[in-house]
Each structure stands twice: as C-alpha cells, then as structure tokens.
C-alpha cells in the first residue's frame, strides 16, 4: 500500500478524491449502458420479427422507427427527449421521474440501441436458411414454436458479431450523457479537468478506462461466440 500512498501524494491530480469521482462515473456509465442494452435488446426481438414480416402494416412502422433513429445523431435524440420532457412534462405526474437526467438519457439510449439492434437481428432473421424453416414446418410446429425454437436462436447466434459492435458503440456513445448533467465517466473526467486544469491527465486516464472496458467486452463476446457457435466449428483432425 505504500507505493499507492506515494503515487497519490506525488502528484496534484490523482488524489483519492479524484479516484472516488472516477469510480462514481464508472458506476453511472455501467448502469446506463447495461440497462439500455438489456431493455433495447428485449425490445428489438419483437421489433425485428415485425420488421421482417410480410405484412406492411407491421413492417413499415418499424422501418420508419429504425430509419429515423439510425439516420439522426444520438445526441440530437437525447436533447430532444431531455429538453422536450423538461418543457412538456413539468406539470404532469411523470415529472419526478423525468426531473433527473438519467431517465431521459436512458430512454434515448434504449430507443437508439433498439433501432440498431432491430436492423442487426432483421439481417440475421431474413438470412435464416430456408431448410431450417421448412424442417420446422414439416415437424408441424406452429408459427410461435418455430419462431422461438428455431428462427430466433439461430438468428441471434449469427447476429452476435455485429451485436458485439453495437455494444461497444453504445459504451462509447454513452459519453454524451455527460452533456445533460449526468456524471458518468466522461462527466467525471471533465470535472477533474476543469478543477485542476489538467486535460491530459483527466482525459487520457478516462480513455484508458474506456479502452479497458471495450477490451473486456470484446473478450466476453469472443468467449460467448466460441460457446454458442461450437457446433459450427470445423471438426478437429484426429
């Protein structure tokens, strides 16, 4: 522990209070990203099924949703929801929820990641090999049964590499939460920069934290892919 004390006392920026602030930022970032990804993923399954349906009344509205949310910057969506809610919901019962920036940010992130994930899943769903669907039909499976037993699991496995990119993208995009007063990792870095006027220390440190999280996510997804795609690997030579 002595070396830690030495480091902490040898410079003016990285004191204990600084690390506490970064830690608070880390928990905010992780919470925000994790919640948006989980809710967004849950939303995107039904949306992707609607989007790949032959019925235009189902697929068109979802197309419009993904078109708008993928065609505009996340920061604009965030501002629209954040400022929009503060001007319109102030006198309603929803205000206690929307008063904190966390929930408008969460809503913006959820909708954004749901839009991207829907398109990723749709791409995987429409490329499901015909034989798999025909086999399921031949077994007499109903639409619901073959969707949740055959099509969705098989599509999700194929969508995994693209989805891991979306997860990284979401982690990086979450930095803009700091622009609506949320003290996430970037917000903490900005505060530390302005307190000590030390841009390099503050931002390079936080860059490494993000880099570390990114690498861990990539590692986790590689592991998951190996596990879920085990049956696709070429047989080992004996």
């Amino acid at each position, binding site marked *: 522990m002595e070396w830690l004390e030495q480091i902490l006392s040898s410079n003016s920026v990285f004191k204990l209070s600084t690390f506490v602030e970064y830690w608070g930022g880390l928990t905010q970032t992780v919470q925000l990203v994790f919640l948006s990804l989980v809710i967004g993923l849950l939303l995107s399954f039904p949306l992707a099924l609607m989007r790949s349906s032959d019925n235009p009344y189902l697929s068109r509205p979802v197309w419009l949703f993904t*078109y*708008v949310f993928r*065609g*505009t*910057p*996340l*920061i*604009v969506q965030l*501002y*629209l929801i954040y*400022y*929009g809610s*503060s*001007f319109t919901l102030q006198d309603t019962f929803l205000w206690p929820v929307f008063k904190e920036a966390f929930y408008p940010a969460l809503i913006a992130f959820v909708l954004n990641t749901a839009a991207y994930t829907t398109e990723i899943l749709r791409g995987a769903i429409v490329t499901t090999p015909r034989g798999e669907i025909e086999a399921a039909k031949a077994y007499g499976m109903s639409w619901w049964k073959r969707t949740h037993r055959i099509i969705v699991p098989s599509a999700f496995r194929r969508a995994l590499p693209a989805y891991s990119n979306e997860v990284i993208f979401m*982690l*990086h*995009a*979450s*930095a*803009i939460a*700091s*622009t609506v007063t949320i003290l996430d990792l*970037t917000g903490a*870095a*900005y505060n530390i*920069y302005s307190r000590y*006027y030390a*841009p*390099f220390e503050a*931002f*390079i440190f*936080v*860059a490494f934290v*993000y*880099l570390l999280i*990114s*690498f861990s996510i990539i590692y986790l997804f590689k592991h998951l892919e190996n596990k879920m795609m085990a049956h696709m690997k070429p047989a080992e030579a004996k």
Partner: protein
Amino acid sequence: MIEYLFDFHGYGPSIFKGAIITIEVGFLSLILALLLGLLGASAKLSNNPVSRGVGTLYTTIIRGVPDLVLMMLIYFGGQVLINNFTDWLFVQFEIDIFINIDQFVAGVIAIGFIFGAYMTETFRGAFLAVDKGQIEAGYAYGMSKWQVFTRVMFPQMMRHALPGLGNNWLVMLKTTALVSVIGLADMVRLATEASKAVHQPFKFFIPVVLVYLALTTVSEWFIKTMERRYSTGVVKG
C-alpha cells in the same frame, strides 16, 4: 396555424447557417479521414514492423475510446499545448501572442483523426481483397509502381472499400453533432440555444432531425450510385 409552425422567432437563418457548418465539418473531416486512412492502411500493410506497430496502435486506441473523450482531449489539451508554446515563446524571445484554439479546427481534426482509424481498417481490407495476380500482371506489363496503383490497385480496391467507406461516412456525419459540445455553433448547438431561449424544444429540434435525415438519405443514394459505378463488369451472384 401554419404561421405558428414556421415562426422560428428569428432563429431560422442561424439554424440554416448551422446546417452549413455541419456539412463543412463533415466534408473537411472526410478528406482528413481518407488521407489518414490511406496512410494508416499502407502503414499496417507495410513490411516495416515499426510502421505496422504504429498503425495497429492508432487503430486500436482510437476505436476503443469514445469520440467525445478524444474530442475533448484534442480541444482542451490542444489549448494547453498552445499556451505552453506561447509561454515558451514569450520567455525565450519575448514574443507576446495569445492563440485561442478554434473549435472548428479542433472539431475537424478530432473527427478526421478518429475516422481515419476506421478508414484505415476499411482500406486495409480492401487492399487485401485485390487479387495478387492482377498486380503481378500489371508489373509484368512493365507498369511502374504508381501506374499499378492508379490503374489496377485503386479502381479495384475502391469497389471493395465503398460499402465500408459509405458506412463510415454515415456514422461520421452523425458524429459531427458532437462538435456542439466543444462549443462550435453547428445546427445542434444553435437549436439547443434557441429552444432554451424560446422554450419550444420541438420546434427547433425537429427541423434538425429532418436535415440529418435528408443528409443521410442523399448520402445513401449517392453511395449506391457510386457502388454501381465501381462494380461495372462484376457479376453479382
């Protein structure tokens, strides 16, 4: 009603100007990113281990860190570097100047630098996709290195690179909105200010949304046209 809808309280022209700034930042960063991408790809594909290492470091770090953090680092850090330099000038030569880092320049450099890393990966993959035999055939015809590059390598590489380039451009166009955070008066920042002043966020953000949608739609159409052009003579399965 119609008059109410189009009453922008005098902010209309300034938001239009902001849209122009968005487009300017987008194009200038695109040029920088393309140059850095070509440079990075040739570094990553070269036989020199040092340049390969630098290229790998560049793409790994940039793609692992949020755009906003890099932009803040370049903007705020650049100001400190410039201040140190002017201080040094004053101490050494008694030249007293003060340079403020320009948000436009910082934004373009940051975005160009970030997307240079993504372009590097796109170009690298595209160069690798060009058939080696074609390049050898070019040399066999007695073409110089430059001729092989411009006549054989580049046109074919572009075909493989275009989908990736188009994708990068679409992402980049949306990333330009981040320059509003470091204070550049682009469309997003002006809309924020106007909606705070007039208390009508939807009135100013919905036009911004529409402009972005229009820009992405036009871009997508243009990319499709280019792809068709560079794929002449390729039979699709």
